[in-house]
């Protein structure tokens, strides 16, 4: 059992080799994915990952307003990451802050590489992610939801995108840090990638030696692969039920 003291509080992150919530270092939190949860959106997905509850909606391809944003040869992609006021311990003022602008940008850049934007010139594909409850890892939960929602909307994609963070707590590299580990840990490194290992998002905060960094990267990649399987299953389930439209998902797999 390791100990760490920070801000006057002693937190033990591990007890008999297990984390505060009973996970092993290389485990992610329980993940639940539901496809097609909204009626108005063209595609949607609800994701629960530990204490995180996020919902993603996709609208489009549709017309761009204002028009000067149009691109002649491809669809633009917009991504809006937004936290509900009541999603965090202390009420958040409604509306975007600097953090949400940054997360929207990197999340969009995490998804755009796999979208066939050239199929829809002069259009926009809008991705909206609402964080209903936050517990560390909302950006990765949001990307996971958004990726499934894009498939649900029938947007042609080269592949899924799966996202997961690795972190460092008490000098140990762990997968998918939860709130306490994120707040008082030593590093946080969210990534997103395709099933074939192409990294589309990489951020890091904290302190990692080069060796730790490589171990964190390996762990996060493993996490993404496992999450991909759950995303895939959720889509197959949905479209088997409906007995149709499976083609869309399969196309995505092949490309």
């Amino acid at each position, binding site marked *: 059992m390791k100990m760490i003291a920070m801000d006057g509080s002693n937190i033990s992150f591990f007890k008999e080799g297990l984390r505060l919530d009973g996970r092993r270092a290389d485990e992610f939190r329980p993940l639940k994915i539901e496809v097609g949860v909204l009626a*108005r959106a063209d595609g949607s997905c609800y994701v629960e990952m530990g204490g995180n*509850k996020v919902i993603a909606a996709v609208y489009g391809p549709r017309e761009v307003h204002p028009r000067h944003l149009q691109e002649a040869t491809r669809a633009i992609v917009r991504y*809006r990451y937004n936290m*509900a006021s*009541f999603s965090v311990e*202390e009420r958040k003022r409604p509306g975007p802050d600097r953090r949400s602008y940054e997360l929207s940008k990197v999340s969009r850049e995490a998804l755009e590489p796999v979208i066939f934007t050239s199929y829809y010139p002069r259009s926009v594909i809008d991705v909206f992610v*609402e964080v209903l*409850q936050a517990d560390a890892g909302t950006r990765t939960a949001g990307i996971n939801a958004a990726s499934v929602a894009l498939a649900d909307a029938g947007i042609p994609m080269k592949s899924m995108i799966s996202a997961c963070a690795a972190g460092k707590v008490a000098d140990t590299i762990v997968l998918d840090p939860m709130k306490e580990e994120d707040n008082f840990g030593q590093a946080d490194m969210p990534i997103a990638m395709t099933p074939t290992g192409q990294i589309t998002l990489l951020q890091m905060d904290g302190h990692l030696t080069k060796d730790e960094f490589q171990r964190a990267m390996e762990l996060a990649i493993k996490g993404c692969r496992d999450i991909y399987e759950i995303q895939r299953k959720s889509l197959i389930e949905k479209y088997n039920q409906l007995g149709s439209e499976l083609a869309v998902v399969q196309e995505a797999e092949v490309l």
Partner: protein
Amino acid sequence: MTNVIAEIKKDYLYNLFLKGERADGRAFDQYREFSVERNLISKAEGSALVKLGSSQVLVGVKMQPGEPFPDTPNRGVIITNAELVPLASPVFEPGPPNETGIELARLVDRGVRESKAIDLEALCITPGKQVWIIFIDVHILDDCGNILDAASIGAIAALLTTKVPASKFGLGEDYPLPVKDIPIATTAIEFGDVIMFDPDSDEESIANTKLTVLSTADGSICGMQKSGTGVLRQEQIYRIVDIACEKAKEIREKFLEE
């Protein structure tokens, strides 16, 4: 094109109405299927997810100590906000609430406030210095019509589950928020002299006139709002009010009273 389809839809719905029917088979005063799930959001002091047909509205209540207004030094403060996030409808846009969102938030707020549902004086901590602030945040998730009724019901449902987080702020033990009434909003549209409750989005899109009635447990009215660019005759208003108070009673008994 869009307009042509809209016109066809309008004709279709209107012809149904003339036969006394709605597209989904409901009676004119019948609500869609309805559910209220409480306490889904553990970070909130109270919360409720209302599903009304395909419409989904999530309401979260947060509380924190703060300063009272100078003219009501010994009363708690209610702040109601509604986010019509673009996830919920192709016509919602990002940015600060527009007049539709503001109207919705103010109506939800008025229901809670004018019904005196919350005992605000019980929320005074130190007179003139510190009182409880209640934030009611309405988050529209899916707008398939009549989100106002869903929001209003979600708000009171969330308040009914709210615990005052006194211990978090070193102000003693947590206790349930004192709720004294259960105001319910019921909304009807008028179209060709047909009065119809709980409109879905198609019905909303063809009606020029909407009337929302907020009523309390004793069968009185605590708020009303006509919206839309149409007109209502006096007797139509009376009719709507009568049905509205009845419907509100049914909803209150079924979903909100233990």
